[in-house]
């Protein structure tokens, strides 16, 4: 291995620009409006999509309870991570916030045998309640109280754990 590596910097051909043509200045504002309308039309499906994703989270937790292994723990994390990323798009930002708290908890665990079951269940229950009660307002007092309590409990739980690395 030579002491000094030769680093190469080069500009590949801009094939994308050649393909799409046009300019950013001429960007079709109608296309942007059309996209916004298409998303608006999808909104009728959002609650059903969220129902599916919440059911998936519940199933992932049931599977984890039965298996208690790394693979089912990863599935549980992915299900909560999907909710964290998508629930706001699906108009349930407080579900996203609870899922974010659950992700923080799961992501900080060193191993699947350290999963605090009661705290995970509390998150899943909170997500179900917020969705069932159709709470979409981020200033809803019930949801805020719930999520702040969960976030506090996660902070405390993590403070008592050994860092995973």
């Amino acid at each position: 291995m030579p002491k000094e590596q030769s680093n190469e910097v080069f500009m590949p051909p801009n094939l994308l620009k050649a393909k799409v043509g046009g300019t950013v200045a001429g960007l079709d504002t109608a296309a942007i409006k059309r996209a916004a309308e298409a998303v608006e039309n999808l909104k009728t499906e959002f609650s059903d999509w969220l129902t599916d994703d919440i059911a998936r989270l519940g199933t992932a937790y049931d599977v984890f309870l039965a298996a208690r292994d790394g693979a089912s723990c990863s599935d549980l994390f992915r299900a909560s991570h999907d909710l964290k990323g998508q629930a706001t798009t699906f108009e349930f930002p407080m579900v996203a916030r609870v899922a974010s708290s659950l992700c923080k908890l799961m992501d900080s665990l060193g191993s699947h045998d350290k999963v605090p079951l009661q705290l995970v269940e509390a998150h899943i229950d909170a997500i179900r309640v917020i969705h069932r009660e159709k709470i979409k307002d981020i200033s809803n007092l019930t949801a805020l109280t719930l999520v702040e309590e969960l976030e506090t409990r996660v902070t405390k739980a993590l403070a008592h754990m050994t860092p995973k690395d």
Partner: protein
Amino acid sequence: MSGYRFDRLKILVVDDNQHMRKLVITILQAFGTTQILEAEDGERAWTVMRDANPDVVLLDWQMPGMTGVEFARMVRTSPKTPNPFVPIIMLTGHTHIDHVRQARDAGVNEFLAKPVSVKAILTRLVSVIEHPRPFVRTATYFGPCRRRRGAAEYKGQERRSTATVTALDD
């Protein structure tokens, strides 16, 4: 001045969540994209990459099996990659700066923290079309230049003393 012809682009959407795929594809179709490929995991995406050679990849991070970061690294460095330069836009629920760095170090061009929006997707597409970054090849990295604001503004120690700058086009 005319706008972009998004109908000329072939875009691969990789996400294990079917709802997120549908949302992203709906937005892309509204932009005018007609050639949209989808994959629910990294393994399938790799097959699609090799079969269809898309122009842009929209990639989720958390997927069963191969993660989005692993997929991006494979696209950039595998001897079997059909296109190591393909622009990769990562859509993820991860928001921590460490995750942004990991994605960058795997060769991702653009990072989009969910929730996704029409504007956010369009902005990232415009970025890879209008502001492609030079590529860098070192002993440990191959991918878009990671100096996000450009080499001219880089204030750190210069490690590219032997760098070769080759303009292949533009």
